[in-house]
C-alpha cells in the first residue's frame, strides 16, 4: 500500500473540512495540515478547531482562547526550526458564544434578541440541540470564508454520528423554522382558534406534557421564528459553499474495526450527497515492517530459540567486564519476538480491513503511529510530513 499526499489538495482548495468518527485524531490532523499549509505553501491559513487537547492548544498558542481568531506567532515556528512562508491562525469553536452572536445578528430588533437570550429554553437549544454544534461549525465556516481574510480555511468538525449531521445542519435549521409542525405548535399562542384537525394532537400533548409547558415552548418558538428569514438565507448560502468546487472533504479514521466502519459510512454519505470526498487519512497506522515475512521469521526465531541466541551472543565475546546473564538476555529476546508477533496480528488485520474498504477516494494517506504526544509546532509539522506523503522516520 503506497501512501498519498494531501499537499495538492491543501495547495488548491479554499476550504478543507476534516470529518470522521470520534477518537481518531481528527483535530490534531486538521491542525497539522493547517500548520504545514502555512509553513510550506505560503497560505494565510485559519484552522477552526472544536475541542483540542490542552497540549495541542498550547502548541498552537491558543490556550484559554475562545472564538477569536488568533495568529500563531513566528516565534513558535522559529522554535520548530521553520521560517513560515505564510501565516497560521487558529480559532476555537465556542458554541454558546457563537449562538449568542447569531441571535443578535438575526433577531429583528434588540428587544427580541434580549427576550430570546433570557428564555430558559434558549440555553438548551444553543447548548444541547444535537445538531447545534454542527450548525455553528458550518456557520463559522461561512463567516470566515466570506470575510476574505484567509487563503485557506481548515475545519475540524465536531464529533457526530454521521457526516450528514454536519453537512445538512444548515438546511435542518432552516427546515426547523419553516416546519408545519412548528406552526402547529405555536398556533395557540398566535390565535386562540385551534383547528378541528389539530385538536386530538393538542389533547394528547396536553395530557403528556401539560398545557403550561406546551405554552412555554410555543412562546419560545414564536420568538425564534422571528429569525427565520435570516436563518433560511444563510442556510442556502452555506449549502452552496460546501458543495462548491473550492471546498474539499477529508475523512480521517484509524484502521480499527469500529472507526473504519464509521468512516466507510461517512464516505458513502458524502458521495450520496453529491459531495466529493477528496482524501482518506488513515491515522495511527502500525509500521509496515510488521507485515514483512522476513522480519516475522526473525521474530519467530527469537521467540523459539531465545536461549540459543542468547548463549551465542554471550559466547561471541561480549565486552570485557560486561557481565550479561544469559538467562535474562534470553528472556528479553523472547519477549522482543513475542511482542513483534502480537503487533503483527493487529497490523495484518488492519491492512486487510483497509484493503477491503469498498470505496475509497483517489487519495489515501497513511500516517504512522507516532511514538510521542504532540506538544509543540515541531510535533505538528512532523505529523504533517506524513500527511504530505513523506516517508516515515525510524
Amino acid at each position, binding site marked *: 500500500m503506497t501512501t498519498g499526499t494531501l499537499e495538492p489538495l491543501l495547495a488548491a482548495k479554499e476550504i478543507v473540512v476534516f470529518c470522521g468518527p470520534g477518537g*481518531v485524531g481528527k483535530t490534531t490532523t486538521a491542525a497539522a495540515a493547517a500548520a504545514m499549509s502555512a509553513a510550506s505553501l505560503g497560505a494565510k491559513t485559519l484552522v477552526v478547531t472544536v475541542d483540542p487537547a490542552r497540549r495541542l492548544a498550547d502548541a498552537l498558542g491558543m490556550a484559554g482562547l475562545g472564538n477569536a481568531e488568533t495568529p500563531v506567532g513566528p516565534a513558535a515556528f522559529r522554535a520548530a526550526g521553520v521560517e513560515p512562508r505564510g501565516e497560521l491562525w487558529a480559532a476555537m469553536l465556542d458554541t454558546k458564544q457563537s449562538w449568542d452572536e447569531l441571535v443578535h445578528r438575526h433577531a429583528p430588533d434588540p428587544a427580541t434578541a434580549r427576550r430570546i437570550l433570557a428564555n430558559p429554553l434558549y440555553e438548551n437549544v444553543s447548548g444541547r440541540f444535537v445538531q447545534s454544534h454542527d450548525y455553528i461549525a458550518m456557520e463559522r465556516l461561512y463567516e470566515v470564508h466570506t470575510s476574505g481574510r484567509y487563503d485557506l480555511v481548515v475545519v475540524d468538525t465536531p464529533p457526530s454520528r454521521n457526516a450528514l449531521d454536519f453537512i445538512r445542519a444548515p438546511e435542518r435549521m432552516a427546515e426547523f423554522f419553516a416546519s408545519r*409542525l412548528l406552526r402547529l405548535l405555536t398556533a395557540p399562542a398566535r390565535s386562540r382558534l385551534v383547528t378541528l384537525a389539530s385538536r386530538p394532537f393538542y389533547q394528547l400533548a396536553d395530557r403528556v406534557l401539560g398545557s403550561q409547558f406546551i405554552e412555554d415552548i410555543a412562546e419560545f418558538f414564536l420568538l425564534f421564528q422571528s429569525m427565520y428569514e435570516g436563518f433560511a438565507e444563510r442556510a442556502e448560502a452555506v449549502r452552496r459553499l460546501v458543495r462548491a468546487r473550492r471546498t474539499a472533504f477529508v475523512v480521517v479514521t484509524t484502521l480499527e474495526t469500529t472507526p473504519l466502519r464509521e468512516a466507510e459510512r461517512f464516505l458513502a454519505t458524502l458521495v450520496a450527497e453529491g459531495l466529493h470526498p477528496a482524501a482518506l487519512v488513515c491515522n495511527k497506522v502500525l509500521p509496515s515492517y510488521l507485515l514483512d515475512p522476513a522480519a516475522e521469521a526473525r521474530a519467530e526465531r527469537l521467540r523459539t530459540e531465545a536461549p540459543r541466541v542468547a548463549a551465542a*551472543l554471550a559466547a561471541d565475546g561480549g565486552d570485557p567486564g560486561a557481565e550479561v546473564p544469559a538467562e535474562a538476555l534470553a528472556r528479553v529476546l523472547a519477549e522482543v519476538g513475542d511482542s513483534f508477533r502480537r503487533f503483527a496480528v493487529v497490523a*495484518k488485520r488492519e491492512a486487510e480491513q483497509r484493503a477491503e474498504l469498498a470505496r475509497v477516494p483517489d487519495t489515501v494517506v497513511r500516517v504512522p503511529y507516532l*511514538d510521542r504526544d504532540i506538544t509543540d509546532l515541531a510535533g505538528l509539522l512532523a505529523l504533517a510530513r506524513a500527511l504530505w506523503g513523506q516517508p516515515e522516520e525510524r
Partner: protein
Amino acid sequence: MSGLLDRRLLVVTGKGGVGKTSVAAALGLLAAQEGRRTLVCEVDAKGDLANALEVGEVGFEPRPVQHRLWAMAMHTEESLQEYLRLQLHIPGASRVGPLARILDFVATAAPGVREILTVGKLAYEVRERHYDLVVADASASGHIVGQLTAPQAINDLVRVGAIRSQTGWVRDLLADAATTGVVVTTTPEEMPVRETIELIGRISAETPVEVAAVVVNRVLPELFSHAEEALFEDLRRPPAYERLAAAVGPEVGDVLAAARLAVTLRRRGAEHLEALRAEIDGAIDVAYVPYLFTRGQGLRTTSQLAEALGAELA
C-alpha cells in the same frame, strides 16, 4: 470492586472510540456467565453491539443472544409508544404519529424529553425486575450528564402532566448507589483520560448518580523490568546489535524497532494513567483490561474482555 455486578443498572459511558460498546457487552457477558439474567442495551443505536456479540439486528424488543443474556437497542419513539400504552393506556400507534414527530421539536427545546424516554425505559426494566442486571451502552461523555439529569430537568420544567408524575421514581432509582452505577470507560491516552476526569467531576457535581468504576481499556503489556530494559537497549546498539543481526538475520532490526515502539507506547500510556490516578485519588475503583491482540473484533474479543474484566473484578 467485587460488588460492581451486584447493582441493578450499570451505565457505561466514555469518550467516543475508547471501546465503550465492547466494555458494555463484556460486562453483560460476564454477568450472564456468573448467573445473572442480564440485558445489554445500546443507547446510541449504531449497530456496534450487534457486532460485539455477533448477532443479527438488535432492535427495541430485547432478544436472547447468549445463555441468560439479552440485547436491545434504544429507540425513543418506540419507548414513547410503550410508555403511552403501559402508563397512559393509549392503545395503538394511530395517535402516536403526530406526537412522535412533535417529539423532535419538543426535545429540541426542552431539556430531558428525549433523554427521559431513554433513561425511563432502562429504569422501567430495572423496576419491573425482568432482569437481574441492566447494562446500558450509554451515550458518549458529551451527552451522558443530560441523560442522568433528565428526570430532574423534566421535573423543573413541566409543572403538570403525566410525564411529571413519572419522573420521581426514575430519579430515586438512579440516585440509589446500591442500584445504579456509572462505569466510565477510557484508554491510556491523553484526550480520553482528560475527558474521564472532567466527566467524573461533572457526574458528581450535577447528577445524583454514583460513578461505580473506571475501566481502562487497551492497556499495553509491560515488556521488561528495569534491568531487562537496559539489556534491551544494549541490544539495539553496536556492538551487540551487529552480533545479534549476524546470529539471527538483518531483519532483526525491525523486530527490535517493533519492541521499542511497544515500550514507548506503554510508557506514554502509563503517564496518562498516572494523571488519572492522581486525579481520582483512590476514590473510585479502576479496572485495567489489556489491549487484545486479536484478529477479529467480535464475540471472541468480547469473551476475552469479559474474562479480563472478571479477573479484575474478582
